[in-house]
């Protein structure tokens, strides 16, 4: 095995590992076959598993996710690709109304073990309809699990957990991380859903981040370290299940909290994290909490404009500095 692998290769690797071990795992989506996916995240799957298990679909987001649902209800473990997370809106009925509710409203009769994977987030200048961080859309819906890995090893390990999950999982792959590289996942690597990771230790402030915000928070932490402020960085990895015990334990060590979210501030997942802290961990805090998040505007195109509205290392550093001095 190579000693480094890219995030995008880790996606295909994660899917392939599960397809090898379980014949009920099948893939479907637009351009995922011979083309290897528009983000090259399914390269090699068609060659290895053939066109019955790697299904090139028409541009029919409702049919893709709806058919995945029907297949999942009847014995398969489909992995459906929605090319850009913005397009989840085209099949929102399935994510909001169908998939997460069937188990419940049938009194537990029907289980929907599927994964919807999608390329999420900004930073690449794709403009307002191809750049949104949409994980919060899913967060508003009871019954979906939400995974958003930040490293290649986590991509593979969380893909394994997502595909093996008997519950529906929306797995957000971050566009800005696709080219990033890291250690490949060891064989049989499974990262249990709902386990956050402390990816940097520090005693002064806790930065809670997700997906592309994790490397950004780590960069900010390095800069802050030069100023004598040691930040602990928690990679949430999942929004549902949400690992609040890791966050609260970190706060027990640092007593200061900053959430770093790419999505807009209003309705962002950071608000949920902060509200649980206010509810259950107020006594742990020595300072107000801060949320570094996207602005409430559609994602603009130009770099200068995009930078202005999504979190940057600078914005995180500034927020932490103020908090450290509180």
């Amino acid at each position: 095995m190579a000693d480094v692998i890219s995030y995008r290769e880790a996606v295909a690797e994660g899917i392939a590992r599960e397809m090898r071990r379980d014949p009920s795992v099948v893939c479907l989506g637009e351009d995922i076959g011979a083309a290897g996916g528009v983000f090259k995240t399914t390269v090699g799957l068609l060659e290895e598993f053939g066109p019955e298990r790697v299904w090139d679909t028409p541009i029919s987001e409702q049919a893709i996710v709806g058919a995945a649902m029907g297949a999942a209800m009847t014995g398969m473990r489909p992995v459906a690709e929605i090319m850009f997370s913005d397009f989840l809106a085209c099949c929102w009925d399935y994510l909001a109304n169908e998939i997460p509710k069937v188990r419940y409203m049938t009194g537990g009769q029907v289980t929907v073990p599927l994964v919807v994977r999608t390329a999420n987030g900004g930073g690449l200048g794709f403009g307002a309809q191809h750049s949104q961080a949409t994980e919060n859309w899913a967060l508003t819906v009871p019954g979906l699990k939400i995974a958003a890995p930040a490293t290649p090893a986590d991509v593979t390990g969380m893909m394994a957990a997502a595909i093996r999950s008997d519950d529906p999982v929306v797995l957000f792959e971050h566009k800005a991380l696709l080219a990033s590289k890291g250690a490949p996942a060891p064989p049989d690597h499974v990262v249990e859903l709902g386990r956050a990771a402390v990816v940097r230790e520090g005693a002064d402030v806790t930065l809670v981040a997700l997906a592309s915000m994790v490397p950004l928070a780590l960069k900010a932490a390095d800069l802050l370290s030069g100023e004598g402020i040691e930040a602990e960085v928690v990679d949430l990895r999942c929004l549902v299940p949400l690992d609040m015990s890791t966050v609260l334990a970190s706060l027990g060590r640092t007593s200061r909290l900053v959430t770093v979210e790419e999505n807009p501030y209003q309705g962002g997942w950071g608000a949920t994290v902060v509200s649980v802290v206010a509810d259950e961990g107020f006594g742990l805090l020595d300072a107000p909490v801060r949320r570094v998040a996207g602005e409430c505007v559609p994602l603009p195109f130009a770099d200068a404009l995009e930078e202005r509205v999504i979190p940057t290392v600078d914005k995180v550093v500034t927020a932490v500095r103020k908090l450290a001095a509180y």
Partner: protein
Amino acid sequence: MEPAELLAAYEQMTVIRRTEKAAHDLFLQGLVKGTTHLAAGHEAIAVGASAALRPDDYVFATYRGHHHALARGATPQECLAELMSRATGLCGAKGGSMHLTKASTGMLGSYAIVGSHLPMAAGAAWSARLRGTDQIAVAFFGDGATNIGAFHEALNLAAVWKLPVLFVCENNLYMEYTPIADVTAVPRPAADRAPAYGIPGEVVDGNDVLAVEEAVARLAARARAGDGPALLEALTYRHFGHSRSDPATYRPAEEVERWLKHDPLDLARGRLVETGVPEAVIGEADDRATSLVQKAVEAAKAAPAPDPDEAFTDVWADGGAAWRT
């Protein structure tokens, strides 16, 4: 159908009709909350199709799905208990009238978002093929669903992949309150669209259980043989309004009268008499249906409400509902 099968189909339709009537009455007594979309008048479609399907085939229905649940093996007692919010309901009273589901008999659910289940049926058919079974999937839906995107996406997908799935439109001439003809570009909202997807599109008298059974049997055999999907448009009429709050005053009196004369139960009964089944035998079937539904009503009434803590079960596959660790 042999006379014995036709008699069984008649009895099943009668059970459905009586159950619908009971649902209506219980509603008026305040024992069924929310709403119900009764399928009285549509019985021949569910029963005819079920007679042509195998027990292991999959069925997906809409909020107007009591008849499909019953035709696919749910008992009147389970269904009425579900409508009456009882713990013994088909879905533990978490589904209600619009979501009757009995997975163990292939009745994979009733979906209240118009058209949403057509892609699911395609997916179930895909899964059957991948697993190497020769099961088929059937989606029953209303005429109104033919103008929804999911209908077109599902048809194309199923056609491209030659999936073993049947799309059965119950064309009762109305969406909620609007005649389908007023808002649709073609006269036969389902069948006329089939050629656009390169699949067979047929029209059948949906009140004639024999005609439905014949058409579904033929199209199902075709699908099972690997020849792909088909679209069947079954013409029918609902006896009640769209839902219980709808007195259906928008329907012309002569139209209502004409269709009520073309009642699926009467048609089947007439056929039974023609084939020489004695009136007394038909009467016994009627009595069995009546007493089955009466007992179901009593049993459902006597059943307890669900334990409130049940609200926190069945979100996840582990049985629970915890969103955090």
